[in-house]
């Protein structure tokens, strides 16, 4: 090995070590603090206690808020997948003038009208529609934002599906709903799974919309509840915060592993999965 080569080797491993440290160090707290008695914000060798999890189950809002998050995510996912599947099928099979233009315009709007830029009118709209402090309000707002990209992805999957499958079903007298349900949807399952996971992860992690639209603590999902754990002295309750953070993160990591194992990564017009 020449000296230049050796130096390059060393440089490479130093770089890898620094990057690994930079990305790993901030995450240490998430794996040590939940298992430490009375944790602080410092990272220390854990006592391997499960007491914090016990405290968490005693908290009136902690576990119910995870359930709230699951309800919000699942409803948003169901409505998004259903509405997107119908729309994508129609747009993929029926010739509408300017169809692709409309689709691109919707995709453009959904990336331009973000929750942060539109939080004031969304709050106003929900107030006028009497949907403040209701699950339905958050579900509908999230669905509206997710739909354009979902339609876009699904249409992509449906376009690449051979038409002959549907034609043979039609020959046997199937109507559009039957064709969609028995022929098209089973064939685009990877697309449906991608959208479903993507929708769930998005809603599960979203803080701003529920923070904006809920008033009652009992209704709030995990993202908002995480910032509501205080000790009797008014300090953040780090035992609950760290333990809850861990529980709340695990589903996201599992879904992510599932998708990357099963379908690999694909870039769909730059959508953050």
């Amino acid at each position, binding site marked *: 090995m020449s000296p230049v080569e050796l130096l390059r080797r060393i440089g490479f491993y130093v770089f890898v070590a620094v990057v690994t440290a930079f990305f790993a160090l901030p995450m240490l707290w998430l794996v040590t603090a939940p298992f430490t008695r009375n944790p602080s914000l410092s990272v220390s060798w854990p006592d391997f206690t499960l007491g914090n999890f016990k405290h968490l189950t005693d908290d009136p809002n902690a576990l119910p808020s995870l359930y709230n998050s699951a309800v919000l995510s699942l409803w948003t996912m169901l409505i998004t997948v259903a509405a997107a599947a119908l729309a994508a099928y*129609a747009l993929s099979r029926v010739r*509408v003038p300017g169809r692709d233009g409309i689709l691109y315009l919707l995709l453009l709007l959904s990336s331009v009208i973000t929750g942060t830029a539109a939080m004031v009118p969304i709050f106003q709209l929900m107030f006028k529609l009497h949907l403040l402090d209701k699950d339905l309000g958050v579900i509908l707002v999230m669905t509206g934002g997710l739909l354009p990209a979902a339609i876009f992805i699904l249409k992509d999957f449906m376009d690449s599906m051979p038409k002959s499958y549907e034609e043979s079903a039609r020959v046997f007298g199937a109507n559009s709903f039957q064709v969609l349900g028995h022929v098209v949807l089973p064939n685009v399952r990877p697309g449906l799974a991608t959208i479903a996971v993507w929708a769930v992860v998005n809603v599960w992690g979203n803080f701003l919309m529920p923070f904006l639209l809920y008033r009652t603590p009992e209704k709030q999902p995990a993202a908002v509840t995480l910032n509501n754990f205080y000790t009797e002295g008014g300090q953040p309750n780090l035992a609950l915060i760290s333990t809850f953070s861990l529980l709340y993160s695990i589903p996201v990591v599992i879904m992510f592993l599932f998708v990357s194992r099963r379908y690999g990564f694909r870039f769909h017009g*730059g959508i953050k999965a």
Partner: protein
Amino acid sequence: MAEETGLLPQRSLGGEVPGGGDRRQGLAFVVPALVLITVFLILPALWTLYLGLTDYRLTGVQAAHPKVVGTSNYTHALGDKEFRDALGRTLLFVLGSAIIGQNILGFVLAWTLRSARRWVRTLVETLVLLAWILPGVVVAWLWIAFLKDQGGTLNTILHTPGHDWWFDHPMGSLIVFNVWRGTAFSMMLFAAALSSVPPSQLESARLAGAGSRQQLRDVVIPSIRGHILTNTLLISLWTFNDFTPYLITKGEPHGASAVLPVYIYLTALPGERLGFASAISLIMLVINLLLALAYIRILRRRA
């Protein structure tokens, strides 16, 4: 991107059944999605236009009977020091953490990991991706803990106990935080782009005696220029709209870390000035629109 290829065979197969019945049914299939998008996505944006022209407030007389005050919110916003400071901070945040930080670190990671051993590659990629997929509320706490003045991990490593990073360098800390948070996307996009560079071109460059720096400059960068632009625009758009800074600093100390999304929130809800906040929102929407239009132009040119 794969869109264009999907369209051609479909047309030539000619499976589309002509006739009004199918068209009508197709329309019925599209209606639910269209209604949801119109009411909950497009309507709020249009409403911003109207609200920004009023003196709407959360409580008081202006709450019941908002008056149209014309463009005064806009002229007021553009002349307002707090707003201009927030905009300046946001541009710094986008430039430092996305355009420079995530872009460069993402590219360097994709480039160096290409030839790394499998376990090294898996380890680094997993960590980078993990930083990206964890929920925003959780990473906010992780970084509050990491940069904590008393007992924070960074101070322990640097032997600088008591240094309050979030208080003394709020914007610098936010920029480093966001590089950590968002580099995964750039890394993956560049990894995909690099695998599409024809190996024969690299090979002939190497045979012509080009070192790896020259290969980068003369072969790799020119052939992934489109990807670099795409990546830059997307991460800028996301960083520009990121609300996570609120979760870490709430805009403290004294608004020194209030980027535009945080400033809008603080003005609209705790500040109760909805009309004024709407005017700022519209300015933000326009900036988003410009970024998105630039992105679409690049996609068009590449197609």
